[in-house]
């Protein structure tokens, strides 16, 4: 039985020595390119291709991939994109609505492909108001907001919508500051399915002119909003519809209303 304990002791020493010597290597990123491509109906094409940022080397600042030969095809035409030399690939050809497009290029020995559908414009996109009046209490600087306005449209079954408000003034005037990085000229609501949404006055940070943009989007875009975890037991693979790649290749249609926020 003594031998057993000698063996046991041996195992302990062995395992302690090996466990001290081994450290976990940082994983190397794969060579899958990251695609950022939004095909907006009736708009020209501008897509961006980059590499992943490796965790092992943080000195790389330019991750864009240049020199690719990229084609985008529909049933009726093939559009060859122009390399802008900064990771952007463009074409002046406008995107057709109600059309399926596919992307294809070669990178690092693999063919990267993706397919998407560009939907048509949304009908009857209207807002119950054209402006908001936001007053500020001179004593405490706190604003007073009006009742929400209603944005509505004729929805298509199973379609996803995203509303973005964008201040278009050159130098917009701030209503009030939350501090930090929250004073953005854009705001949006989460993608959803439906035919209307409230436009809350509290979301506006600036006075001035706004574009209220209703995007009709595909499910792959809605999927980008999911979180992907922080620990080895809840990490989730980010959604992509790009084969052999990462990122997004998605079609959409946008409709815009003008809106004003005044004092």
């Amino acid at each position, binding site marked *: *039985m003594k031998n057993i304990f000698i063996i046991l002791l041996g195992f302990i020493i062995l395992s302690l020595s090996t466990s001290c010597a081994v450290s976990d290597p940082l994983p190397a990123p794969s060579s899958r390119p990251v695609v950022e491509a939004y095909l907006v109906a009736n708009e020209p094409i501008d897509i961006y291709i980059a590499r992943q940022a490796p965790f092992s080397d943080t000195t790389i600042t330019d991750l864009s991939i240049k020199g690719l030969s990229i084609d985008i095809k529909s049933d009726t035409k093939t559009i060859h994109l122009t390399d802008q030399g900064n990771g952007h690939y463009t074409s002046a050809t406008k995107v057709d609505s109600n059309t399926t497009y596919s992307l294809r290029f070669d990178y690092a020995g693999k063919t990267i492909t993706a397919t998407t559908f560009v939907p048509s414009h949304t009908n009857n996109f209207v807002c119950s108001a054209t402006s908001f009046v936001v007053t500020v209490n001179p004593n405490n600087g706190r604003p007073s907001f009006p009742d929400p306005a209603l944005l509505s449209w004729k929805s298509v079954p199973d379609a*996803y919508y995203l509303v973005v408000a964008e201040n278009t003034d050159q130098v917009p005037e701030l209503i009030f500051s939350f501090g930090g990085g929250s004073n953005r000229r*854009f705001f949006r609501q989460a993608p959803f399915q439906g035919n209307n949404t409230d436009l809350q006055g509290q979301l506006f940070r600036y006075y001035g002119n706004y574009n209220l943009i209703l995007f009709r989007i595909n*499910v792959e875009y809605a999927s980008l909003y999911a979180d992907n975890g922080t620990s080895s037991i809840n*990490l989730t693979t980010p959604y992509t519809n790009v084969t052999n790649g990462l990122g997004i290749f998605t079609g959409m249609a946008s409709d815009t209303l003008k809106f004003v926020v005044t004092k």
Partner: protein
Amino acid sequence: MKKLILLSILYHFGLFAQAQTGKSPIIIKEEYVNYQTLKNTLEFFKTKYGFKINYDDVEIKDFYVTYLFNNATAEQAVETCLRETPLKYTMTEDGEFSIYDPRKVQAAKVAADKLKFQGKSVQQNFNLKGIVKDAKSGEPLPFVNIVIVAESKGATSNVDGYFTLMKVPSDTCTLEVSYIGYKLKTIYLSPKKVKALEGQDFLIELEQENAILEEIVVSADREELLRASEKTSMLKLSPSKITALPSVGEKDIMRAFQLMPGVSAANENSSGLYVRGGTPDQTLVLYDGFNVYHVEHLFGFFSAFNPNAIKDVQLYKGGFESKFGGRIGSVAEITGKEGNSKNLNLGLDAGFLAANAFIEAPIGDKMTGLFAVRRSYQTSLYDAIFKKYSGTRTAATTPPGGGGPGGFGNRFNTSVSSYFYDMNGKITYKPTPKDVITLSLYNGTDNLDNSRKTNFNGGAAIRNFNLNTSDLTYWGNLGGSLKWSRRFSQAFYVNTLVSYSNYYSLRDRSSTGTITQPDGTILNIKRGTLEDNNLKDFSAKLDFEWKANSKNNIEFGLSATQNSIKYTYAQNDTSTIIDRNTSGATVTGFVQDKIKLFKNLEGNLGVRYTYFQPTAKGYVEPRASLTYQLLPSVKLKAAYGVYNQFAKRVIREDVFQGSRDFWVLADENKLPVASATHYIIGANWESAKWLFDVEAYRKDLSGLTEYSLRINSNPRQTANYSERFYQGTGVARGIDILLQKKYGQLNGWLAYSLGEVPYNFPDLNKTVFYANQDVRHEFKAVGIYRLGKWDLSATWIYASGRPYTAPEGGYNLTLLDGSLKSYINISEKNAYRLPAYHRLDIAATYTWKGSAGGARSIGFSLFNLYDRQNVWYKEFEIQNNQLIETNVNYLGITPNLNISWRLR
């Protein structure tokens, strides 16, 4: 085989006589012996009282006796004379004593021969029925082996302690009775003994091998903690003996199983059984016949079974027989104690985590009862485990996010309460010698509450703010069974059982509150997650056991189960992500035959059929196991079986939101019935002291399900739960090796398991990956050393790291509103492995006997002696495109103290 039997006799020789204690009449009223030689004393008794005593002059010449014999029987007198010597004695049924020195083999053999009946037999080929009980408490002992030595054949007592030996060759043969945790007993039949039965049960009383060593003799007469050689892939341990093993807080049967080959110990936060590459839900846990669906207390740190209420535990690691079903991996069969039928007994235990008390007593002549209760209290150890496993990283309460302009004056109250308890109750009523009626109840609950209340007063923007944050984990089991067993004849036994089992788990991590705005309007807030899983199981069983002849022991039965399982997972009071409420019945029939095919070949052949209502299909499960006694000490074994599982647990990967798994009922669509086919071959070599056991297994798995957020094709449709269930297949294969020193002052075992569990979930991962529970190498060493009244023990576990998934790189995408969103690209599933897990635990237990004979002990243990920082999982954070990887570790070095008191 003869050598083995002889050795066995010799090792356990001193034990036979003790069972007879108290049967002879008191014959010595008062005699004072003052420093007389042992020989003179014995001769005095022979002359004055007519004792019949054989001894060897040389062996006894060095010993003296000083004692006042008062109201002593002959046996008590002889026992007292030998108390201070290494000598032992035997006593025949005629009252003839033989004194011998157990260190001298020949002397022991001569003494043993004296016990055998020397005359002619009267009855041949008769059936002997009987019952095996604990000598002290009268508790019937289940699954005891009774072997007819001359023929190497025998029987096993059933769950109520009854047995029938078919075709006993003669009424002069020798029986050997063995049961884990008890002294081996050799019984010499005689015509007189058999005739005296007159059709009554033959009573065999076994003595518990407790930790109190009263003799200086180093004898090899103790039974082992672990028994692994009885059946293919079956392990058995003695609940009363796990006290000697190191523990954190509480003695734990499930943790003790984790020290055995084929049961993984690498999941420190789970007392569930990961058997041969399976997950805990693939193990059928039967407690007095009812299913227990969740076996964990305190985030899994130890199991919900109170060892004080348990008398027998068997673990079938695979290839199990047809009478068990509904799980694809393994079976843990737990039998609760009936309670002391002779005397009132009380017991108390206290450790750093919980206090434990039990009472057992006879209630009239025909009834016994036992009630045991255990409850935690808050200690530093409790808090340490609670904080680690509840995900409470800091104790500070932070105000809710969001904030607003201006600063608030704030004030908050934090109240944390948390506990667990379990209760076992059992009443056994024996109205006739043929009937046993048992009511068994179990309830165990964890209420882990980390809730807080927060109040903010004042401030310019908000007048008043109240927030009640619930962080409640409430889970438990409630179960009960009512069983009626009737022995219609020696050969026919019927067991009727109705049972109910309810598993409930509520995870509430939500906040409710109000904001009072300056204008007086009050806004209500409700956010967070709520998870509610409730499983109900109503079952009825009718089992028959028919000993058709000495070669066939046939069991057959029918059972029906109605399951209803509810699972709700809701967020923010409004969106319900999963809301399943399913129910269904399973109706099962089985037949199996424990058959002696040839002289050395035994088998258990059976088939089980289940009709599962939700799929409206029948499932046929053929099963077979064979053992072949190649040599007296070498056994070959093999098993095959098909298994299906209808209620299964699905893991939801999320560490911060509490409950990480939930039970569901299989259906025809996304949650298929899980099934497995087991193939097992093995061999063992066993001597009186040693056991070497090897088994190789392969399990082909299908219908596996994972619930995962990893592939999120459509997060806007989260309400559709079916999006998130993935189906797959897998294989679990490996080899388990055990080398055990069964007896002696130093005993224990070395166990090694080699295994792998590749899974194939095509929709979850493009390639085959290793399952979360895959552990390539696992080595365990367990040693228990007895030194006087001390039991010193050490356990060491080494397990290669479990697989995990890690980030590989990061990227940003510009969204339509102009904002940048960062993504982490993830490796293939489980592409990496955590560092190896290893841990050394030690314990010292001092045991002594109280005035009424009850054992008392005090135990110290150190968990993770060399403070190994074993990794539970990794946390990742991206800062400036750099990956910060943090290990979240299991417990470091942790001391513990246990005290135990028994009245009897």
